[in-house]
């Protein structure tokens, strides 16, 4: 297969031709939509008056919940998210009214004239408060192996502690956007920047009280999504559809950046508690984790996210007796949602903290403790939820990366540097990633495709996945061309469209290429079988004595060939019209469901994942201990994508994932005020990595010679796993902080490691040192 081709939209991206939702050409009937949202975190809506707003010239519609024709709901799994508030608001940013007008300015003028009377209630704005009041969004769950309590009693050493990991804003450059164009009768055409067109379609149909067959959702591409458009693109789409239905005109809502940041959910912040037992060598014997997340005001995907956190709380390590409890709490903040990693980062941060602490307690290099606790190749290879780890790449990656990154030499150099520098300290860390691939809600692991060959021999591939920059369509184009043995330029991947491929799952869980690639292959296999049968018949017409059999037909070099008689060949371009004359159907649907997975959520046991993706990173940082500012001096990554479908795209995903993870681990801090207003709602108050924040020396490689059995062309998913490689940056910063007190004390640490967190930690360490010096002095006297 042709591997190193650029992203299929690369030329369009650099010429400005690529069309995003906001760029779609619409006629002059287009109205601008606007959502008016709650200014209170928790309040009763006592009364409202829309009459003045409706009078503003240019305003075509001002709507409230009473104007919804169907079901006032937009909850993706649990129906607990009202589309337009009725008599109560539960977070700042909750939609109450919708406006459609000819211009944005008219919308804003109308909004100013809406009068709402609120009666404020107590708002729960911190996870600590929600835990204190036991405000659960649903029942807690536990995954458990062995007798943890007695193992903890028996363990030679134990440590306990808690870890806070912060929320993260998706900051897709293209904010939430939707364009709806009315069709005839009840039809509505929806152009949404959504990762989940089928769900967008379903929610709009229910909201408008019409059949799903009246709603067509199309997605050409998204300007970034990262999980933020898995469920929450539905909101903007629902609001736009309501206005379109009510005005019978095209309507577009494109959220302003600040509104987008205020009203959409984020990565879940976690407050986790841990207790761990280990032996003198640093081998983990047992661990007990309690993970608590801030779900926000509604369920959204919070339980699936908590589940993935619990399933990744082991990361790469075998822990004989292990229990993980997870609880999701309700607060008066926007409902938190999917974000690349989907709970995995929060779970892994806990176990990586544990390993780091065990190493510091035993005064050993954390790398040594990590490798000592890796899941084994033949034994100690079953997770706490009962899945056996096959094709374990941990040792292979560790050995290669420790050598290629010159870890041990650099550890010595870092120590030397720290011994001779007072105001700058260096830190070094290696961390692994083992990430399970599949939706943990097993039935979602299915995909469909529709492959069409037109009479000119051009091929249009439709599949259920959406393109958000991850290169899915490029990979699908490559797979289709390779399976049909034709050149890439013959294959076009269509915009994702619910009228072409129905009932799809979200493009999520890193599984886009795995699932849709297989579905496309299935459709092509069906086409090839039909074509082979007829071509064998056509070839045989001239050779009655020595006929061509369908099994010997091959598809290669843009030709259809009898492999037993290579002179019997016809070009693809010539063959297709001939096949049409022979009444061969030249389009086929394909389907795929992931085999051999199954998971009992209640028991917390089974095989939730088709396979695991592995990776490791070594990060070195330089820390200015007077300002708390860090620089990433060098990062080495070795990542496993099986047989890569496209190395350029995969390495781009690995680098980009790492950088996004570095943002979560370092500078991205979300703050709300005591009224539940988001304070960090703009790029001037919320800092995502920019070009000067990336490693000075950045070395990324893919693990070679590791085909993945039983997946599309032996590849592995990429997308999410590399984000968690950034924990190496986070722990390298901790290592640098720890050097301030010559590794004599355990530093206080949380995530993100902002300058403030770093400086406070250093201050505490210095105080500890002073106290010990004073104590030593007193003892000596």
């Amino acid at each position, binding site marked *: 297969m042709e591997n190193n081709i650029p992203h299929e939209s690369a030329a369009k*991206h*650099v*010429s*400005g031709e690529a069309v995003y939702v906001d760029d779609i050409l619409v006629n002059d009937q287009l109205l601008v939509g606007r959502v008016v949202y709650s200014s209170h975190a928790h309040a009763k809506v006592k009364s409202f008056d829309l009459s003045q707003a409706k009078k503003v010239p240019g305003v075509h519609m001002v709507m409230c919940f009473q104007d919804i024709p169907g079901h006032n709901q937009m909850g993706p799994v649990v129906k607990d998210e009202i589309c337009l508030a009725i008599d109560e608001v539960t977070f700042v940013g909750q939609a109450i009214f919708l406006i459609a007008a000819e211009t944005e300015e008219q919308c804003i003028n109308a909004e100013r004239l809406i009068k709402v009377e609120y009666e404020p209630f107590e708002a729960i704005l911190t996870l600590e408060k929600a835990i204190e009041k036991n405000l659960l969004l649903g029942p807690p769950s536990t995954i458990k192996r062995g007798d943890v309590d007695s193992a903890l009693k028996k363990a030679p050493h134990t440590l306990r502690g808690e870890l806070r990991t912060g929320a993260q804003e998706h900051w897709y450059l*293209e904010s939430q956007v939707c364009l709806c164009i009315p069709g005839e009768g009840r039809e509505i055409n929806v152009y949404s920047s959504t990762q989940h067109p089928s769900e967008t379609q379903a929610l709009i149909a229910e909201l408008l009280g019409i059949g799903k067959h009246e709603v067509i959702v199309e997605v050409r591409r998204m300007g970034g999504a990262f999980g933020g458009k898995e469920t929450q693109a539905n909101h903007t789409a629902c609001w736009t559809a309501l206005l379109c239905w009510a005005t019978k005109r095209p309507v577009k809502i494109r959220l302003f950046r600040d509104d987008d940041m205020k009203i959409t959910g984020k990565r879940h912040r976690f407050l986790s508690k841990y207790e761990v037992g280990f032996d003198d060598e640093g081998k983990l014997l047992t661990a007990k984790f309690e993970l608590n997340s801030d779900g926000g005001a509604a369920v959204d995907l919070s339980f699936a996210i908590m589940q993935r956190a619990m399933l990744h709380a082991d990361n790469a390590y075998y822990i004989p007796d292990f229990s993980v409890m997870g609880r999701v709490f309700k607060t008066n903040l926007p409902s938190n949602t999917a974000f690349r990693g989907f709970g995995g980062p929060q779970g892994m941060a806990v176990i990586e903290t544990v390993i780091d602490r065990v190493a510091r307690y035993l005064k050993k290099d954390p790398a040594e403790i990590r490798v000592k606790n890796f899941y084994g190749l033949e034994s100690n290879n079953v997770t706490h939820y009962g899945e056996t780890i096959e094709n374990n790449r941990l040792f292979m990656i560790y050995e290669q990366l420790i050598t290629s990154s010159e870890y041990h030499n650099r550890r010595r150099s870092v120590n030397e540097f720290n011994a001779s520098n007072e105001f700058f300290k260096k830190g070094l860390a290696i961390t692994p990633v083992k990430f399970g691939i599949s939706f943990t809600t097993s039935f979602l692991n299915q995909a469909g495709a529709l492959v069409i060959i037109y009479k000119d021999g051009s091929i249009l591939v439709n599949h259920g996945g959406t393109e958000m920059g991850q290169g899915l369509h490029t990979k699908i184009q490559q797979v289709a061309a390779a399976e049909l043995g034709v050149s890439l330029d013959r294959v076009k991947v269509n915009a994702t469209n619910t009228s072409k491929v129905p009932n799809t799952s979200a493009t999520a869980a890193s599984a886009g290429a795995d699932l849709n690639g297989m579905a496309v292959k299935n459709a092509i296999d069906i086409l090839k079988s039909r074509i082979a049968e007829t071509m064998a018949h056509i070839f045989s017409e001239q050779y009655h004595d020595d006929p061509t059999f369908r099994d010997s037909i091959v598809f290669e070099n843009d030709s259809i060939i009898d492999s037993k008689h290579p002179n019997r060949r016809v070009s693809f371009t010539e063959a297709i019209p001939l096949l049409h004359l022979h009444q061969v159907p030249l389009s086929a649907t394909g389907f795929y469901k992931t085999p051999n997975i199954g998971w009992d959520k209640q028991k917390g046991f089974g095989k939730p994942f088709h396979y695991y993706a592995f990776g490791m990173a070594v990060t070195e940082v330089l820390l200015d201990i007077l300002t708390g500012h860090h620089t990433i001096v060098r990062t080495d990554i070795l990542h496993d994508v099986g047989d890569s479908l496209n190395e350029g795209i995969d390495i781009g995903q690995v680098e*980009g994932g790492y*950088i996004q993870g570095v943002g979560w681990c370092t500078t991205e801090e979300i703050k709300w005020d005591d009224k539940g207003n988001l304070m960090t709602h703009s790029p*001037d108050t919320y800092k995502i990595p920019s*070009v*000067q924040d990336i490693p000075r020396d950045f070395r990324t490689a893919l693990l070679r010679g590791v085909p993945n059995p039983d997946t599309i062309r032996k590849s592995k998913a990429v997308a999410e796993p590399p984000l968690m490689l950034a924990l190496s940056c986070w722990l390298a910063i901790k290592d640098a902080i720890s050097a301030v007190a010559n590794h004599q004390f355990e530093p206080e640490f949380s995530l993100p490691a902002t300058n403030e967190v770093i400086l406070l930690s250093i201050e505490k360490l210095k105080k500890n040192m002073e106290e010990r010096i004073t104590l030593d002095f007193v003892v000596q006297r």
Partner: protein
Amino acid sequence: MASFTIKVNGTRHTVTVNPDTPLLWVLRDTLGLTGTKFGCGRAFCGVCTVHISGEATRSCVTSIESVDGKTITTIEGLSSDLSHPLQQAWIHEDVPQCGYCQSGQIMTAAALLAQKPKPSDDDIDAALAGNICRCGTYNRIRRAIHRAANEVQSIQKGGRR
């Protein structure tokens, strides 16, 4: 409403809009040049970058009134056939992922190269610090700028092509 004349990508346009209308909306809505994107509306993210008299400028906070009579280049005007060295380098280095920020990145990079034909990593960081990319393509952006710079130099020296 008032009339303003701007020269965009070599063509003169007279538009009748409110004087405080941001140039971004004139380009996108009035002239249909949608390659320049809306990101934050406050000049913090860089996706709306165009050249005004050759200088990289955030079009979302630049009023049409302030650019009356000026020459503007957008991503569509960089070349008509993807021949600009930056466009070539961007494709060659496989820079774009979601693509949304890339026209702004390229326009900022083009202004940098016009000033500093052979920029260092630090020059690139300084010039592009305000152009954010959530996909994290920065490493390739740097590489693509170096590649384009080398390409331009070799053309000037009568080397390749």
